[in-house]
């Protein structure tokens, strides 16, 4: 990979997360690995149910347990394995080093606490400051996300969806995190508000030089914001590379199909091309390539083996047999 060993910041190795329910084991995340550099933005794209959110929750060790369980793998932040940490150590990381912006702002805030208190709570947890100082910092944070500080004492129900998401962003950025995970931060918002919220997030991310793991299924947002892109399908990363590699030199048939299903303003097409079929049931994944049933370029061999990720050049990883012969397997 292109990663320079000295700046390696986050490294996820062979992460496996399952949900063990009465109706069987749901294999949400299957053996995924990726690396991030400090200050980098990595986008995790994929359909609903591809395991994006579970991966993110895994990084914070917040996978709801039961039924969820991190089966295997390593998550190294600055070389330290988060999965080996005590609950107490992990609490110190959450909210200060790694923070998360959740998908639905409507339900992400405690309805009976003032927004100011919810921001100052995280400040007080990770900084040795007095109540008054924390309140002042929380006010500053509100101003930074574009909410007047006078609204410190207001409750979430007095805010609109976009404003609530700004509060959630303020909470996530209050302690100057090293890694910000944003889980579809705008998919519950109106399109006009989406742009505003993304913009705010963007400004702050740049200002604070935060690394960011961006979970989304909006390829437009990805194109605008990311350095690197990981495409997830059925709990696996099927293609990984720089923005340019994935968008301009698309290799995996699934990624290709995703782009084909998008409307293009420059092309005059009557119909978009959908990806036929459904994502496989994660409680009974096939032991061959999980995209086989929907793949347009499938071959006989595809049904025999589960392909490994291959580096097709400059750290561009593709998990497809079509490219298995091009380079040696990436392990």
């Amino acid at each position, binding site marked *: 990979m292109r990663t320079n060993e000295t700046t390696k910041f986050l490294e996820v190795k062979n992460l496996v997360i399952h949900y063990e329910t009465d109706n069987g084991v749901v294999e949400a995340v299957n053996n995924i690995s990726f690396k991030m550099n400090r200050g980098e933005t990595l986008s995790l794209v994929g359909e609903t149910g591809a395991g994006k959110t579970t991966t993110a929750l895994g990084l914070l060790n917040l996978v*709801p347990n039961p039924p969820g369980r991190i089966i295997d793998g390593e998550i190294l932040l600055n070389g330290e394995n988060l999965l080996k940490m005590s*609950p107490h150590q992990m*609490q110190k990381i*959450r909210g200060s080093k790694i923070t998360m912006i959740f998908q639905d702002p409507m339900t*992400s*805030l*405690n*309805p009976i606490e003032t927004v100011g208190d919810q921001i100052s*709570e*995280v400040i007080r947890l990770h900084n040795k400051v007095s109540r008054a100082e924390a309140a002042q910092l929380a006010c500053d944070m509100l101003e930074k996300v574009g909410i007047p500080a006078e609204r410190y004492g207001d409750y979430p129900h007095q805010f609109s969806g976009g404003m609530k998401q700004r509060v959630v962003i303020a909470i996530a950025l209050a302690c100057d995190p090293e890694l910000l995970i944003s889980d579809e931060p705008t998919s519950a918002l109106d399109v006009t508000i989406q742009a505003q919220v993304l913009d705010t997030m963007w400004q702050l991310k740049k200002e604070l030089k935060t690394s960011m793991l961006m979970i989304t299924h909006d390829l437009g947002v990805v194109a605008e914001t990311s350095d690197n892109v990981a495409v997830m399908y059925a709990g696996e990363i099927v293609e990984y590379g720089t923005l340019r590699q994935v968008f301009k030199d698309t290799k995996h048939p699934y990624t290709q199909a995703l782009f084909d299903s998008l409307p293009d303003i420059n092309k005059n097409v009557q119909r978009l091309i959908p990806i036929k079929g459904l994502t496989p049931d994660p409680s009974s994944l096939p032991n061959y390539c999980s995209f086989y049933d929907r793949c347009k370029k499938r071959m006989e061999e595809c049904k025999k083996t589960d392909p490994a990720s291959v580096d097709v050049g400059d750290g561009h990883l593709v998990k497809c047999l079509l490219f298995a012969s091009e380079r040696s397997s990436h392990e």
Partner: protein
Amino acid sequence: MGRYVLKRLLHLIPVLIGVMLLAFLLNEIAPGDPAALLAGGESATPEKIAQIRAELKLDDPFILRFGDYVKKLVTEGNIGVSYKTQQPVAAEVAHRYPQTLKMAAISAVLASIIGIALGIISAIKQYSFIDNIISMFSLLGVCMPVFWSSLLLILFFSINLKWLPSSGFSTWRHWILPCAVIGTSMAASIVRMTRSSMLEVIRQDYIRTARAKGQVERVVISKHALKNALIPVVTNIGMHFGVLLGGAVIIETIFVIPGIGKYITDAIKNRDYPVVQGSVMVLALTNSFVNLGVDLLYAAIDPRIRSQYRNMGKMKMKKKKAALPLGREAV
């Protein structure tokens, strides 16, 4: 907020008038003749009965008697005089109500503390051994009829062990058994309510947000989850408390406690209408206050309800303004 309380207090007037009228009407249509009972039942002579009816003005038309009652209530604050003892009802209620109140208060406080604590434990240790034990006992507590558990406790603690007195109300030891019986059945229902409410709240997104801030689990539960989970529990406690204030007739009978429940049932048996009338009014009043207390407690917990109360007045003003012809509000 003050407006809201004032409005609720003013609502008491129509409620009390309604209760007064209903109680009077029910006494009117109930079968049985108080005069006949006072004259000595079966053996009474018609002359004697007629004489008593005249003394008690039972032969006057309904409207006259009701008017007379209201007049006395308003001018003298007199809620009635017992047919049987010729004593004012208010004095007797003042003498008996403290016993009922004491029993209800002790039971409710104990039941709330135990019930909420066990409910929380049960919820955060869902499906564990301790949860199963608590759930089983709470089910048992809800199902056991109080007369049966009273008798069992008396048999065990008073007769076999001779630790506690089986009846009376003079020392604190007398209160243990009746309060234990009421408290257990009430606590059982609070446990179940708290458990289900906590389980619902724990799955909410804002609990995940609190954890993602790095908050310690104890605070996540006590600050973020419990306060939100308490709202339905408070309703439950308030309802139980209201019922208890009406007198736990069975308990008062078994443990020979001169409370208000026993007073009313005896009065009904004796056709002592003024007693029924007066006590029902007192009960209606206290129940209204309990309800008001519960509603205010809601407001204390939940800011959404608080702003609802605050807006009630404003909304009426707006409606009035809207009803005016255009341009009028400028005047």
